[in-house]
């Protein structure tokens, strides 16, 4: 193979936009992949009042934690769609061989995955917020922390999904790998919402969440690309 074959045909930015477009189109053609994690999110948040108590005053205290645990679990479910389909039909191998930087490809794929999973979850979360009795004033903090947190979760999840993509029974393993890494997010995210509900400024927690977000967005693409190289080769 000559070096000319390895030269990418389009610029990295163009390739990334193409991938984002493709991913979004694919998920609109298979809406169940987008909707199922959201429905799961709603169901899990329904479980808590049924299992704990129907008193809105009690629920209100637990609401941030419940919301965040449910968001964490449902984001794990949506990870299956990230690489699996493309790995099964060989698209992922072609992308890896395209000569484009795998890091850029992963960046585009995970960003579009967040748009259809994390951002969608943020849009649905007010419903859950109302049902759990979260006061209106807390909604901006809740939405902001969820937006930052789900972006981080998409990245951590992408690492887990990249590591387990070739495995037959990867589902449980992804949770085992990703959940311990995601615990700081839960603490800061639920903490920010908690603080806002208690009338304290949530700025500190939101800043920390934001810095974690920047941190994962910068480093995780490399880790995901390395993970895919490990699982794809051979």
């Amino acid at each position, binding site marked *: 193979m000559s070096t000319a074959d390895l030269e990418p045909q389009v610029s990295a930015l163009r390739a990334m936009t193409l991938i984002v477009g493709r991913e979004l189109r694919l998920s609109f053609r298979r809406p169940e992949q987008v909707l199922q994690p959201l429905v799961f999110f709603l169901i899990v948040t329904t479980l808590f009042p049924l299992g704990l108590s129907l008193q809105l005053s009690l629920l209100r205290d637990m609401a941030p934690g419940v919301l965040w645990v449910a968001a964490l679990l449902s984001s794990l479910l949506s990870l299956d769609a990230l690489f699996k389909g493309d790995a099964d039909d060989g698209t992922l191998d072609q992308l890896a061989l395209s000569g484009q930087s795998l890091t850029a490809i992963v960046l585009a794929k995970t960003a579009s995955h967040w748009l259809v999973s994390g951002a969608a979850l943020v849009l649905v979360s007010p419903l859950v917020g109302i049902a759990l009795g979260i006061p209106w004033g807390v909604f901006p903090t809740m939405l902001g922390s969820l937006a930052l947190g789900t972006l981080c979760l998409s990245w951590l999840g992408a690492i887990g999904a990249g*590591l387990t993509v070739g495995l037959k029974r990867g589902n449980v393993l992804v949770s*085992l790998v990703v959940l*311990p*890494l995601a615990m700081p997010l839960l603490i*800061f995210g639920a903490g920010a919402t908690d603080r806002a509900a208690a009338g304290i400024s949530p700025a500190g927690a939101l800043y920390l969440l934001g810095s974690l977000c920047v941190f994962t967005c910068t480093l995780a693409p490399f880790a995901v690309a390395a993970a895919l190289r*490990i*699982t794809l080769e051979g």
Partner: protein
Amino acid sequence: MWTWFYKLASPPSVYRTATALTPWFMTVALIAIACGLIGGLGFAPPDYQQGDAFRIIYVHVPSAYMSLFCYSAMAVAGAIGLIWRIKMSYALAAATAPIGASFTALALVTGSLWGKPMWGTYWAWDPRLTSELILLFLYAGVMSLRPAFEDPARGDRAAALLSIVGFVNVPIIHFSVQWWNSLHQGSTIAKIGKPSMPGSMLWPLLTMLLGFTCFYAAVVCMRLRGEVLNRERQSAWVREAVKS
């Protein structure tokens, strides 16, 4: 220099070195642990606040230290494997993981046993206990990822990458858990800080730290031998080594 290094890192040489080093490490470990225990349980004065119950520190602190030490060793060995493609480095990481997880479990158990007389409960969501628990989960993730691959070489690399990601995350987890605790509850529990210890209390602790580290080295050498034999079971030198 590099040829020497690669020779040293070849499986037969690793096997021989590990075999030769095991008794030395084990001897030092046993002597140090024996001295530390005698000093800690016999000669150290009882704590003015905690009485004799503080003596569990001589097991608890070294095992908590080893839990982090082993995780770092595992991540560094994994990184060396990924960067320089030294296979034996993966064997070292694989041999270290269960030992580290055991030390983490030991730290948790001794911590909760200590918690019963001091705090009145076996488990408190104390920041250090919680981050130790999360560390145990991280070990569980690494240990279950490796054997999930049919191709052991891929499992090694995947586990190495995961342990590096976890290594970056350990300080974040530690810090976040501390922050979380300061948010949710005040100091209902009298936290045991780091008091300046008198020498008679300190030297057994340092001896125990040395003993635990040497114990890890001895056990990792034993496990490494097993790993090497298992990984190289197709090769001629293993057949000879097993026969003799």
